[in-house]
């Protein structure tokens, strides 16, 4: 059997700090094929950005400790030299970030910032790069691209800046695109435009897409598979439809339930997940969700408090990290009214 296009295996990213070791990501594994979209959801601080930046090797040169394997198109990215990794960065793998204003350099023209990405990987003249830049700006739907190419980032609206970021990321026709909350800072109407654009470009270039977000709605609209992260680990992983219709563990239930549900009476209070996410320092043994979990009481003994559950298959391709009995879990789905 051939290896998947992208296969992340046992990825861990730890940051030594003066307070101790921050385990931002631990034991993370997933796969992704070309033309497909993986959605990664989870609360702020759950390790979504840290784990995805590892694919681009953005932790190199920092004090982060990265281990595991990232097989991409036949090579293990983590074993590449810094220079080889740099050559692939921005060319085969590209990334767009959450806040397009701060992600663009305020002192340089957007055109120059985009062509820079092209020039870094192609032996072409500045003129050629500029023409290509204008073509890309046009492609991502910026009106009058030949004029706007000489503007500065602050002269663009939020949505247009994100288009600029997309143009920059796609200028070298990457085969993997990581979008780190590309629409969180944008209005819903603009979010819809950007998501449409991403999907359209993905179809056109057969790009694999990792979509990081904390909005389950966005995931539902665009992802084929979903990975739910909590405190640096995957807690549930499966096809979008399976995961949304039969979420299998308490944290995912909580996420789905806390979204106001149009079919429920507005007189009923929302159902939040109580408490706050745990610190990634000195994590206690056992399930990271234990302190907030309302279902731990149904697990016999004190396994939730003492033993970290494994990420185990539930059905074909649907995995969960939870001690809760499977039958009980399906009962809970009915009871809590998850869709």
């Amino acid at each position: 059997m051939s290896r998947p296009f992208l296969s992340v295996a046992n990825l861990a990213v730890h940051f030594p700090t003066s307070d101790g070791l921050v385990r931002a990501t631990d034991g993370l594994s997933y796969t992704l094929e070309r033309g497909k979209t993986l959605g990664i959801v989870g609360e702020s601080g759950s390790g979504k950005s840290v784990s995805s930046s590892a694919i681009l090797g953005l932790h190199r040169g920092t004090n982060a400790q990265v281990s595991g394997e990232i097989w991409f198109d036949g090579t293990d990215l983590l074993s590449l030299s810094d220079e080889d990794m740099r050559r692939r960065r921005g060319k085969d793998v590209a990334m767009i970030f959450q806040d397009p204003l701060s992600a663009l350099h305020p002192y340089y023209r957007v055109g120059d910032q985009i062509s820079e990405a092209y020039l870094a990987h192609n032996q072409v003249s500045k003129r050629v790069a500029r023409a290509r830049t204008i073509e890309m700006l046009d492609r991502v739907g910026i009106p009058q691209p030949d004029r706007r190419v000489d503007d500065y980032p602050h002269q663009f609206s939020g949505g247009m800046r994100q288009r600029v970021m997309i143009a920059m990321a796609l200028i070298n026709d990457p085969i993997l695109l990581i979008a780190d909350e590309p629409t969180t800072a944008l209005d819903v109407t603009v979010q819809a435009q950007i998501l449409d654009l991403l999907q359209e470009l993905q179809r056109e270039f057969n790009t694999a897409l990792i979509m990081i977000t904390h909005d389950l709605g966005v995931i539902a609209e665009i992802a084929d598979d979903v990975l739910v992260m909590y405190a640096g680990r995957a807690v549930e992983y499966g096809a979008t439809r399976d995961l949304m219709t039969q979420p299998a563990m308490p944290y995912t239930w909580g996420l789905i339930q806390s979204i106001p549900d149009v079919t429920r009476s507005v007189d009923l209070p929302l159902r939040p997940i109580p408490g706050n996410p745990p610190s990634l320092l000195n994590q206690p043994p056992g399930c990271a969700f234990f302190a907030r979990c309302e279902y731990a009481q149904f697990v016999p003994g004190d396994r939730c408090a003492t033993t970290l559950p494994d990420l185990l298959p539930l059905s074909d391709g649907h995995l969960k990290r939870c001690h809760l009995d499977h039958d009980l879990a399906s009962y809970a789905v009915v009871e809590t009214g998850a869709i």
Partner: protein
Amino acid sequence: MAAPLLEVRDLVMHFPVKSRGVIARTVGHVKAVDGVSFTVEAGQSLGLVGESGCGKTTTGRLITRLQKPTSGQILFEGQDIAQAGPRVLKPLRREIQMIFQDPYTSLNPRQTVGEIVGAPLVIHKLVPASQRLARVQELLEVVGLNPEHYNRYPHEFSGGQRQRIGIARALTLQPKLLVADEPVSALDVSIQAQVINLMQDLQREFNIAFLFIAHDLSIVRHFCPEVAVMYLGKIVEKAPRDELYEHPKHPYTKALLSAVPNIEQAVLGGRRERIRLQGDVPSPINPPSGCRFRTRCWKAQDICATTEPPLQKVGAGADVAACHFPEQ
């Protein structure tokens, strides 16, 4: 009939735009709020939604009189406070409070939680100093924080907890009206729900009216029985929640609703009309003539460019919309 708690009539806020010449002249105005009217009854909530820059925050700041409107009336319990001076406003500041969007920057990092929450008591000299501590601790308890945390600083709290501190501060003076400017936008979904529930409990318990500003339509639906949609400084539609969400009359409302990702429809499929607005919101300095939405509206006709549609009743319910060709 008694006057409503808050009635806003034709509220206008124009910010001058200065030229870049040697001598700065006013060359235009940002028409941030341009003729907005609505009422909020005691103990009720009105939702205010719309895209970034449409004037929601400015409206909130005008009502709390953090800014002085260019023109229009703000009737609070029948008294016009739109142009009132500090002497008239001071007692009213107790009645109208604001909760801010960003829990990270809206609290002074050098003050303890006790000082932040207790400050209004000091300023308005409401409670003798001896009882201040007890009152502040009581408030912390009300918003679900540990009263023992009286002496801690904001950075020691998570985003959701900080927003609770902001709410406690707003509650200190037992206001009748709370202007909540995107109170949960910066929070994670699971935490959002905690804060929303808290505000709803407080509303019932203390009979507080809310002007609830947000861009998340599903949260507004949950919180507010009545919702107003703003576009470029104007209200384009105002309706009871079910009416607005089930049968939007204004094309903009329709587009806004259809842009919200919907899990059920995405996963289970189902009929869904997708409306994609093109381009960006026009500049509030030179808003389009006639109907401001016409540049992005798929229904626009010639009349939309020449005549501004008034906000008028559409259909059988209480729905008002400003459109020449409303949905039926």
